[in-house]
């Protein structure tokens, strides 16, 4: 097993364990911190896949901005494990069984798919570099990029309108 394989398995296990801890943690602040671990693991996967731009954007936007927003809201509301509303035990079991069944169905459907010689190549190819992404973004995806700015403007207006004291 080369270094890449070792890193792949390490990051996968880290992502899965952290994702389970996000769901299991009683304290919302701990959930946020575990979610940041998931984002770091996924960024590591992006770097392994040679998508450096997405790795950095993932860290800056998700682990940086969005998670700080979550932490800010949680601390603003003064939430902790005692105020956590609890669901009925049977509803929890039903939720886990439903998620597990979805996993079972998807894995069973994809297990025998013929993907033996389809490789996601690692450490090669330069489509993930910022130059190529930028050239494509500003040539082929110009209109969606501009529409994105309208989306952000409407999000700003919406957040202000919803959040203001009436």
């Amino acid at each position, binding site marked *: 097993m080369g270094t*890449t394989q070792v890193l*792949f398995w390490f990051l*996968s296990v880290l*992502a*899965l364990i952290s*994702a*389970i801890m*996000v*769901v299991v943690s009683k304290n919302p602040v701990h*959930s*946020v911190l575990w*979610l940041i671990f*998931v984002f770091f693991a*996924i960024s590591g996967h*992006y770097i392994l*896949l040679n998508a450096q731009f*997405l790795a950095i*954007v*993932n860290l800056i*936007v*998700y682990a940086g901005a969005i998670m700080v*927003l*979550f932490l800010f*809201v*949680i601390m603003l*509301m003064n*939430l902790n494990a005692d*105020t*956590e*509303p*609890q*669901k009925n035990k049977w*509803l929890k079991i039903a939720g*886990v069984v*439903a*998620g597990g069944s*979805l*996993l079972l169905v*998807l*894995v069973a459907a994809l297990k025998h798919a013929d*993907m033996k010689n*389809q*490789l*996601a190549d690692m450490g090669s*190819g330069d*489509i*993930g570099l910022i130059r*190529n*992404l930028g050239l*494509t973004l500003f040539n082929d*995806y110009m209109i*969606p990029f501009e529409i*994105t700015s309208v*989306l*952000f403007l*409407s*999000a*700003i207006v919406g*957040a*202000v309108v919803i959040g203001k004291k009436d």
Partner: protein
Amino acid sequence: MPINYYIFLSVALFCIGVSGVLTRRNAIIIFMCVELMLNAVNLLLVAFSKMHHHAQAATNPNAGIDGQLFVFFIMVVAAAEVSVGLAIIVMMYRNTHSIDVNFLNRLKN
């Protein structure tokens, strides 16, 4: 790495997110589980983009770049969604002093 490892990893992350949405009642945790599902899909998109690139690099040096741009746009939409969603949660907390989603089961008061 064979593509099926990435598929199974993403499916597992997505299903953990689904279970979280179904089992938790804290609105913020539900939101974080939605982010988890978005990230699982992003990882799968990048893996598929590299797979496509690996298969077609000889004919088209930019093959598969669309997948990574879609990931970029998903991140943009997720950022907008989180800002509006957290504003809604703050407003809900201000009105009910709780972030239990069961308080929202009837659209009155």
